[in-house]
C-alpha cells in the first residue's frame, strides 16, 4: 500500500472505491484493429517524408561546417567524464512579494542531480537553498531520471562528438546571449492524433562559456508547452567522483506525526500558547471577522513503548470568516475564509509549499494563485491561507505584534 495516512487513504477510497478488473479487452482489440486499417494509408504516405527529413538532418556536415569549431568547443566545455553533475530549474515556483513596495520576485525550486551509470542517481531538491527532498536511486532503478539531465548526459554529448549536432543561430535566454544547438530531429507519431510530427531537441549554450544554460523541445517548429528548461550549471566529472550519499534525515516518510488544533483561546491565552506576544491582524481582515483562535500542537516521532513523542511544537491558528459543520466549526472552503497560523519553530507539519523556510522579514512568499503563503515577523513564522490572493496579502500587511 502506498504511504498515505489512514485519513487520506480513507478519503481517497471514498472518492473512488476499489473496483473489479475491467472486461473491455475484446472491444479494445476490435476498435484498434478497425482504426489501424483505416489509418494505414495515411501513415504509409507520411513515412517517406519523415525518412527524407531525418536523413537530411543527420547528413548535415556540422563538424566541418561554419559552426564546427564552436561545437567542438561546446563539447570541450561540458567535458566527457562519465559522471554528470547538473543543477536544473524545476517548474515549481513561488512568488516573493515585498510588503512595503509590492515588488515581486519568482523563486524556482532547483534540482541538483548527480548521474553515474554505475552508481545511479542522487537527486537533491532545494527551494531558496533549503533542502526539500533528497533521494538516491540505484543504477537502472530509475529508467527516467530527469529529461533535461538524461538529455544532457547522453544525447547532447554524443551529438557534439559524433558530428550530428547543428548550430541553429544566436538568441538570448534570460538576458544571456546564447547559441542554439540542435541535437536531434526525429519524425515521431503523437498518440494523441496518430500523426507524424517533427520533434527536435535543442540546447542553448552561453556565448562566453559555451556551457549549456537551457534546453527546449520543439514539435513542428514550435516550442513545447513545457517551454524552456533552465540549466543552472552542468559539468562532467571523472570516474568515482561526485556525491552519491543521500541524507536520510530529509525524507519524512515513515516518521509518525500528529497534528492537533484544540480549544478556542482568548488573545492572552494565545500569547501564552505561543510563548511570546502573538502577531495580530485585527478583529477583522478585509471585512472578514475573526471566528476562533485555536491552540496548535504538532508532534513527531512516536515512541510506541513509552507513548512519548520525540518532538513537540506548539503554536496558534486564527480563523477568519464563517465556519460550517456544527460545534466549533470548520472553515467553509467554498466561501471567503482566512487562516493565519503562527509558530516559533518550523517543522514539516507547519506549512505548505515549502519546508523549513520563511522569507526575510517584510516579505511574503506565496504559491499557486496566491491562496497560501509563508512569512516571518518578529521571530514568529507565519503560514497564511486565504480564499483569495488579495485577502492573503491584506492579512500579511496587517500582521503586527499585538499592543
Amino acid at each position, binding site marked *: 500500500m*502506498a504511504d498515505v*495516512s489512514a*485519513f*487520506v*487513504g*480513507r*478519503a*481517497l477510497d*471514498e*472518492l*473512488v*472505491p*476499489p*473496483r473489479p*478488473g*475491467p472486461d*473491455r*479487452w475484446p472491444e*479494445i482489440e476490435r476498435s*484498434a484493429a478497425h*482504426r*489501424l486499417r483505416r489509418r494505414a494509408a495515411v501513415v504509409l504516405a507520411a513515412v517517406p517524408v519523415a525518412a527524407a527529413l531525418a536523413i537530411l538532418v543527420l547528413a548535415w556536415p556540422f563538424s566541418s561546417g561554419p559552426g564546427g569549431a564552436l561545437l567542438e568547443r561546446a563539447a570541450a566545455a561540458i567535458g566527457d567524464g562519465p559522471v554528470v553533475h547538473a543543477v536544473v530549474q*524545476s517548474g*515549481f515556483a513561488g512568488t516573493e512579494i515585498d510588503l512595503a513596495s509590492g515588488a515581486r520576485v519568482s523563486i524556482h*525550486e532547483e*534540482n541538483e*542531480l548527480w548521474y553515474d551509470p554505475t552508481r545511479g542517481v542522487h*537527486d537533491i*531538491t532545494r527551494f531558496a537553498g533549503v533542502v*526539500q*527532498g533528497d*533521494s538516491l*536511486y540505484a543504477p537502472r*532503478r*530509475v*529508467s*527516467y*531520471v*530527469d529529461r533535461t539531465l538524461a538529455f544532457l548526459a547522453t544525447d547532447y554529448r554524443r551529438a557534439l562528438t559524433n558530428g550530428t549536432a547543428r548550430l541553429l543561430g544566436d538568441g538570448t535566454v534570460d538576458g544571456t546571449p546564447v547559441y542554439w544547438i540542435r541535437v536531434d530531429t526525429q519524425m*515521431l*507519431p503523437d*498518440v*494523441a492524433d*496518430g500523426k507524424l510530427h517533427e520533434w527536435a531537441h535543442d540546447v542553448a549554450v552561453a556565448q562566453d562559456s559555451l556551457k549549456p544554460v537551457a534546453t527546449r523541445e520543439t514539435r513542428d517548429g514550435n516550442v513545447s508547452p513545457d517551454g524552456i528548461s533552465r540549466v543552472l550549471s552542468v559539468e562532467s566529472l571523472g570516474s568515482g567522483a561526485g556525491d552519491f550519499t543521500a541524507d536520510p534525515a530529509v*525524507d519524512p516518510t515513515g516518521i509518525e*506525526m500528529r*497534528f492537533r*488544533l*484544540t480549544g478556542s483561546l482568548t488573545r492572552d491565552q494565545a500569547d501564552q500558547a505561543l510563548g511570546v506576544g502573538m502577531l495580530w491582524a485585527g478583529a477583522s481582515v478585509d471585512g472578514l471577522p475573526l471566528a476562533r483562535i485555536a491552540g496548535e500542537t504538532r508532534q513527531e516521532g512516536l515512541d510506541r513503548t513509552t507513548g512519548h513523542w520525540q518532538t513537540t511544537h506548539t503554536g496558534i491558528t486564527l480563523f477568519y470568516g464563517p465556519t460550517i*459543520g456544527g*460545534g466549533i*466549526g*470548520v472553515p467553509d*472552503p*467554498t466561501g471567503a475564509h482566512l487562516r493565519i497560523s503562527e509558530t516559533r519553530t518550523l517543522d*514539516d*507539519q507547519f506549512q*505548505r*509549499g515549502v519546508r523549513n523556510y520563511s522569507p526575510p522579514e517584510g516579505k511574503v512568499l506565496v504559491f*499557486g494563485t496566491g491562496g497560501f503563503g509563508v512569512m516571518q515577523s518578529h521571530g514568529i513564522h507565519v503560514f497564511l491561507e486565504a480564499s483569495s490572493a488579495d485577502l492573503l496579502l491584506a492579512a500579511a500587511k496587517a500582521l503586527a505584534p499585538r499592543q
Partner: protein
Amino acid sequence: MRGVTLAELEELYRVRGSDYERVAIALTGDEGLGCDAVQEAFVRAVRGRARFRGSGPVGAWVWRIVVNEAHRRRDARRDEPGLPDKRVAATESDNSDSVYDNSDSVYVRGLIAELPQRQRLVLFLRYYADLDYATIAEVLDISTGTVAATLHRAHARLDHDLQEVRQWRM
C-alpha cells in the same frame, strides 16, 4: 525502437486495469468518462504498440496515455454546455468507528478537489496505482525529487486539514 506485444498490453490491462480506471475516474470526476478514457487509451496503445520506443517500462508509457486521455475527456466534458455534473458516486462507509459523517465526506472530497492539479495527480498515481516515485516521474516527465516533494505537500495538506476535522468532531 523495441515495440510492445499485444499480449503484453492485454496482460497489463487484465492485471492493472482496475488501477487505471480508478485514476481515470478520479481525474475525470465521472465513472463513465474514466472507464471510457482507459478503454480509449488502450486502443491507442494497441494501435501504436510498434512505435513504443522502450525508453521506460511499458506500464509508464500506458499510464501517460491514460492520464492524457482522462484530461482530454474531462476538458471536453467541461466545454459541453448543459451537461449535468455527474460526480462519482461515493460509497458511504457504514463503519461505526469512522470519524467522518456524511457532511465530512463532502468536505474531504472538497479538500482533495482543491489540491493543485499536479498534487492530485501524483497522489492518485501513488495511492490508486501504487506506483513508485520513479515511475510517477516517468509518467509525468518530472524528476523523482519533485515527485517526493509534491507528494509530501499533498499529503501534509490533506493530513493537516483532515486531522483538523477529526479533532473538532471529537
